[in-house]
């Protein structure tokens, strides 16, 4: 369609202008959206920040009856479950990453395992929780009966196991990414000096990818901190500071899921939102650090 008249050119110029504007508005709206998230959370937690203050972090009593809102049990529960999940998940994710990124880089076996790990990430959280409740909980309970602790079945350990299953795929996909980036000539140089594969992994691959693997673990931790449904179903929902891996507990996310629709007092609701603000800030910081490490890694 040849463009002849001024009017047509004007029309195109306008469409052109409108199109670029739409792109710009879309992009900026994402930034604004996130910023408004932050503002909303801060504004809605102000009543709690003002009345409870710093005690929110170290207070151990969460008692809506007497308006006492100490978030420490949930902070502790969140860290406890997430770190335990990481400890369980790290050896597995490193193995899978080496399996896919070093031992079996291509071929059918690699494709099968890669898909299985990816599908692990696809299963919804609520289904993990449901499965955990009916398969894992009885197992843990019989273990607890054997060693003589209160046989609740649910608790820190149960949630950590499920969490570790859920975060393995994230750690793996990021770690594989950095392991495959190790320059081939470095590895070949080591092999030509007579190094075994294990020695190459230990002396070349792991040191080279250290920061990348760290970022992968950090991002997996971010995932674990905010995971809600499976943990809510398996942690035991108890407002006490967990003292052992068999203790019931609560995480920040699970306490929000349990109590948000029913928090009557203004401070109560605001305290829950402050917990959400905490989660938001922590996961944001973790993500920014993790992604920037990975980005720097892939560029270098």
């Amino acid at each position, binding site marked *: 369609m040849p463009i002849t008249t001024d009017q047509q050119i004007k029309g195109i110029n306008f469409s052109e202008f409108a199109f670029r504007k739409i792109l710009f508005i879309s992009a900026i709206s994402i930034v604004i959206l996130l910023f408004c998230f932050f503002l909303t959370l801060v504004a809605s937690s102000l009543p709690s920040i003002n009345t409870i203050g710093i005690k929110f972090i170290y207070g151990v*009593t*969460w*008692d*809506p*009856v*007497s308006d*006492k809102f100490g978030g420490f049990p949930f902070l502790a529960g969140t860290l406890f479950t997430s770190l335990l999940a990481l400890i369980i998940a790290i050896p597995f994710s490193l193995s899978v990453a080496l399996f896919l990124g070093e031992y079996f880089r291509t071929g059918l076996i690699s494709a099968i395992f890669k898909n299985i790990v990816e599908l692990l990430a696809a299963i919804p959280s609520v289904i993990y929780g449901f499965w955990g409740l009916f398969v894992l*909980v*009885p197992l843990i*309970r019989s273990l607890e*009966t054997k060693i003589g602790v*209160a*046989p*609740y*079945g*649910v*608790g820190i350990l149960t949630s950590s196991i499920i969490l570790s299953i859920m975060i393995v795929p994230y750690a793996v996909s990021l770690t594989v990414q950095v392991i495959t980036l190790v320059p081939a000539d470095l590895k070949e140089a080591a092999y030509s000096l007579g190094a075994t594969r294990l020695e190459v992994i230990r002396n070349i691959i792991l040191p080279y990818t250290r920061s990348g693997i760290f970022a992968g673990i950090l991002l997996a931790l971010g995932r674990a901190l905010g995971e809600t449904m499976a943990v*809510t179903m398996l942690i*035991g*929902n*108890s*407002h*006490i500071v967990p003292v052992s891996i068999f203790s*019931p507990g*609560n995480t920040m996310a699970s306490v929000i899921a*349990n*109590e948000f*629709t*029913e*928090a*009557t*007092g*203004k401070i109560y*609701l605001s305290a829950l939102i402050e917990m959400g603000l905490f989660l938001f800030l922590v996961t944001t910081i973790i993500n920014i650090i993790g992604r920037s490490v990975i980005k720097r890694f892939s560029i270098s």
Partner: protein
Amino acid sequence: MKTFKSALSIVILTAVIIIAMAFSNTKNENAKMTGSSDIELTAAGATFPYPLYSKLFYEYNKQTGVKVNYQSIGSGGGIKQLQSKTVDFGASDAPMSDEELQTSPGAIVHIPTCLGAVVVTYNLTGNPVLALTSDVVADIFLGKITKWNDKRIQGINPGVKLPDLAISIIHRSDGSGTTYIFSDYLSKVSDSWKNKPGTGKSLDWPVGIGAKGNEGVSGLVKQTPGSIGYVELIYAIQNKMPFAKLKNKSGNFVEASLKSVSASADVSIPADARVSLTNTDAKDGYPISSFTYILVYKDQKYGTRSESQAKSTIDLIWWMIHNCKQYAEPLNYSSLPVAALKIAEANLKSVMYGNKKLL
């Protein structure tokens, strides 16, 4: 590329059509509001009467076409959602406190609908029926009695062989009217309970794990050997779980039943219906009984509420308190005594839309 484009356009087209349908449906529904068949009411609150309410609303839908979406999120949730005006009515087992009434944006009336009982249920092999006294129940839930074969439990139950098993306490994790009734009872009978944790819809529990809803507690008790929890009577019966006979104020060991629960309401009821029936003076009354309430705003004209919406809310509640009996008793809820029904009717009649009477 062609196939993709056509596939994409088909997907988009279907999406647009369905969305358009969704929106047109909105309009239709608003238009039909003045009729009555497509009215949908939203409600939330107590899990305690949920089995009964789901039955009642199911029947009401069959008879009138009015859909009632009741979500059992706990009494605390019912009060909160009513206060933030996200539901047509709330439901709670605990009457609202003076403070809650003051902070609400409008006057709220309490309509008792039926009576229920909280039972102490447990998971022991052989499902023995235990007898318990109030101080033993309090000390178990305070964590002072930790084993099933404790002398104090065994002493009241000489005929039962109790195992050397740790007691796992299971309580509610959500704000709950059941918890309120249970802790209200324990505060009345135990001074150390009254000091801490006290009475409330959610408590700072000294021991145990939390489960969501009466459903959650009975589910967990059923799964956990050696556990003890408290649930509304129907949840124990439906799940074939044993529950304890309790010693009441007059010194009788009473099992929760339609009769003993009704008997507990044999006390004088104030005009606003906010009354605690726990630890009742009635001789044959079960000591942990309570009314369960529906909560509505006295002035139904708020937000974007239409008069027909308000009217159908009130009609529904009227129908509930008068038709409760035939559905309640098979499900082990006790229906209102005549005196309480009179108060429920009077309270419901006081509800207005602006300055227009609804009943």
